[in-house]
């Protein structure tokens, strides 16, 4: 079965600083990859998804970006963080051939001060 690694688990950054969150996957190949943000412990907002290397779809315009440099690596970045970027960031995968369920990593909690 697949394993999803996210790091760092916790991050405190000042406003205006850059961001890099990383997600790597083991145990599967060519997955669909997703970044979600969860604010205040409630609803999930889909930020980006990728169906292959270098292929990124953005769902919400904002100061975040995503990249997929390798098949099983998905990176969420920002050049300048805003206070509103604080939240719990979840990486998820959908493996080929399944019926659509996503499997989630353990998340990265970002606090922007």
């Amino acid at each position, binding site marked *: 079965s697949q394993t*999803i690694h996210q790091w760092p688990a916790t991050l405190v950054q000042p406003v205006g600083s850059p961001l890099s969150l990383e997600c790597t996957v083991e145990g599967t190949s060519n997955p669909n990859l997703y970044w979600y943000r969860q604010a205040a412990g*409630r*609803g999930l907002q*889909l930020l980006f*998804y990728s169906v292959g290397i270098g292929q990124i779809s953005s*769902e919400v315009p904002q100061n975040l970006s995503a990249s997929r440099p390798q098949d099983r690596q998905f990176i969420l970045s920002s050049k300048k963080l805003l206070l509103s970027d604080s939240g719990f960031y979840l990486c998820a995968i959908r493996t080929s051939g399944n019926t*659509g369920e996503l499997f*989630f990593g*353990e*998340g990265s909690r970002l606090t922007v001060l």
Partner: protein
Amino acid sequence: AQSVAQPEDQVNVAEGNPLTVKCTYSVSGNPYLFWYVQYPNRGLQFLLKYITGDNLVKGSYGFEAEFNKSQTSFHLKKPSALVSDSALYFCASRYTGANNLFFGTGTRLTVIP
């Protein structure tokens, strides 16, 4: 528009009593429906899914859900609640051919000892 609704932000139930967490969907065609559970500061864990076939779906930890096409509902149920079931529950849907899941806003379940 594709969406799911969880009409209750909070559900409280006594330990040992049956529990129900409600979900209704608005998905064109044949929906794929899912339930997830999230414990504090953790990623989402997949509980169960409905794709086709038997309307009653059994999942992890003794949970089950019933697909009701006429009421466009997919309520999560458990015959006897445990204190350890206290968590945030998300309903999600996907329509055929879509890459993404649409998540509800979540229902916080509290099981009272």
